[in-house]
């Protein structure tokens, strides 16, 4: 009886182990190991071969001395190239700038929306939030595409401005930084509204009543009560927008001009046009370095939220 019991409890533990092990191994293989490979290849040399990079380790056999040695070749010129070439540095700075502006625009549009929804009648909040998330379920590419027709010369905005007599000829907004801002704000808006709404909705409305009772005017109450309490939502939403925006590729490629340099585009071009895999890897590593701190903050918040859920 006791033997059976201990056997079964061991099976229970074993079952648990399997449940953890399967996703764990999957992520190790398909998430962690790939980064190590990228890191490794960023030290390789670009060669014309299949695959187009040099091997880092070489097993050299010396037939005369009857010895062999393992040689590790680390090539750091890729990183020197990144540091030395204005193109890369500009692309980095520009990526961070565009991501920051996008985050700010998302916050400006998203905060009042989230606040208004959180203040709405409880029965209407669900449908209103649904309306914010709904576009997310349609294709991202299609949503970017929609803006091409609106922003291009002779497009909807251009025609509207001309019809209203504000401008005399077609206005081209497409292929500029502004087109990228608009497109990225459009795509990332739900990621900002969602965490903002969930912190604002949880806020106790009697706090504002108490503030009013103590003589605080509505706007003052907003600044001194609502805003500080919604800070976790602001941080979470901003990270959710900023981190992927820095590495964004599709929006600048479709809406940006040739001079809208972003690091994601540089990486893509190094890889697909120049077929220089080692430099593309070095660019990826450098991009990760920029994002390490924001990602760690994001994970910290995410972890705390999961704990609080309990």
């Amino acid at each position, binding site marked *: 009886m006791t033997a059976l*019991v*201990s056997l*079964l*409890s061991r099976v229970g533990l074993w079952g648990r182990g399997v449940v953890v092990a399967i996703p764990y191994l999957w992520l190790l293989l398909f998430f962690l190991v790939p980064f190590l490979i990228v890191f490794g290849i960023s030290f390789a040399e670009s060669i014309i071969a299949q695959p187009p990079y040099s091997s880092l380790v070489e097993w050299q056999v010396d037939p005369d001395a009857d010895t062999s040695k393992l040689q590790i070749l680390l090539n750091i010129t890729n990183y020197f190239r990144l540091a030395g070439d204005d193109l890369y540095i500009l692309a980095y700075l520009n990526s961070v700038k565009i991501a920051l502006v996008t985050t700010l625009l998302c916050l400006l549009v998203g905060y009042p929306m989230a606040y208004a929804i959180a203040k709405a009648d409880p029965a209407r909040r669900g449908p209103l939030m649904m309306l914010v998330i709904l576009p997310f379920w349609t294709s991202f590419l299609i949503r970017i595409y929609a803006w091409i027709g609106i922003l291009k010369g002779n497009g909807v905005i251009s025609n509207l401005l001309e019809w209203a007599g504000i401008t005399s000829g077609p206005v081209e907004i497409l292929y500029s930084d502004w087109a990228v801002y608009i497109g990225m704000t459009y795509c990332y808006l739900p990621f900002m509204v969602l965490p903002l709404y969930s912190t604002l909705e949880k806020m106790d409305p009697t706090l504002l009543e108490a503030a009013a009772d103590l003589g605080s005017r509505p706007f003052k109450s907003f600044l001194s009560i609502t805003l500080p309490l919604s800070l976790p939502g602001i941080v979470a939403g901003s990270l959710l927008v900023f981190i992927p925006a820095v590495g964004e590729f599709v929006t600048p490629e479709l809406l940006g001009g040739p001079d809208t340099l972003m690091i994601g585009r540089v990486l893509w071009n190094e890889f697909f046009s120049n077929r220089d895999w080692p430099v593309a890897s070095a660019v990826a590593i450098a991009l990760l370095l920029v994002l390490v701190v924001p990602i760690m903050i994001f994970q910290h918040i995410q972890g705390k939220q999961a704990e609080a859920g309990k």
Partner: protein
Amino acid sequence: MAGQPIRKPTRLEPWQDPGQAPYVRIEKVTKTFGDFVAVDEVSLSIYRNEFFALLGGSGSGKTTLLRMLAGFEQPTEGKIFIDGVDMAGIPPYERPVNMMFQSYALFPHMTVEQNVAFGLRQDGVAKAEIRDRVEEMLGLVQLAAFGKRRPHQLSGGQRQRVALARSLVKRPKLLLLDEPLGALDKKLRERTQFELVNIQEKLGITFIVVTHDQEEAMTMSSRIAVMNHGVIAQVGTPTEIYEYPHTRFVAEFIGSINMFDGRVVEANGDQVLVASEEAGCELLIAHATPAPAGSPVSVAIRPEKILLSKEPPAGETGVGEGRNRTTGIVREIAYLGDVSIYLVQLPTGKTVRVTAPNVTRRTEMPITWEDEVTLSWRPFAGVVLTQ
């Protein structure tokens, strides 16, 4: 003789019978979570057919102890025996124990019947028998007509009874109840207390109840273990716990009490005489735990054991000038209907709490604010506390 212990056992209680083996034996059990010691070297013996209460505030370790009995937590050290079997390594689904959860934990996607039948189905009981036993249980908790309902279609009291039926249907020898009445309102709670005791006596099951409500523990249980910071402060019958607390903590946790600090003047057998500046008189205590002369002690006296009068009472044994009698001024009166609470300030500054039944109508109340009154108590009223 007045003032004798009320409890006169008609038969030998199991915990007093050396021939009885305890049904649940907890031996020096310790449970730590990281640095936090939730349960600290607790030993307890609980006997068949007991209605045993674990009483304590939040963080006292009572729920952790219960969860170790159910098998959801493993003791860090020590052993637990149920019916003589060591429970180490035995998972919850192999234990002869059932539990009623504080949140009731009714499966929301199953009907009342399916909830109650769940435990029997795990044991592979025949369908017909499951039907009969579920019907019988629902009858016992007076929910026969509600079998097809889902939990969210029931009121709080009904859910509580479904949870009880579900935990009883497997006929466990031991039922663990985690705050069984915590989610009910006051009226319903009082009614359900009696129902629980009736069911326990009818089915002859050992109950271990975790509660933070002292009144609940007092009315229902055969014995109470008062827990504090992971340690058992005292185990005893409700009367013992109330009338003879061993420590200041127990005395203050159960009901309200007046404490007088003092020093032992004379100890004669189980009679102890204590001098207390705070009380403004000497205190004579009969049936006290012996304490050597000169040692510092506290004397605890329950508010209802103190007699409040305008004139010193005459003809009481052990009560006299400067002994078990002091005077003070009434500062506050709280009228609670059946009793009134008086806060009386002694010349020493100490405030004493006295409760007196409202035998007469309030309009004829003889004692009022700022009256000078005499407080007196018999030698059996006080308890000497050394710790």
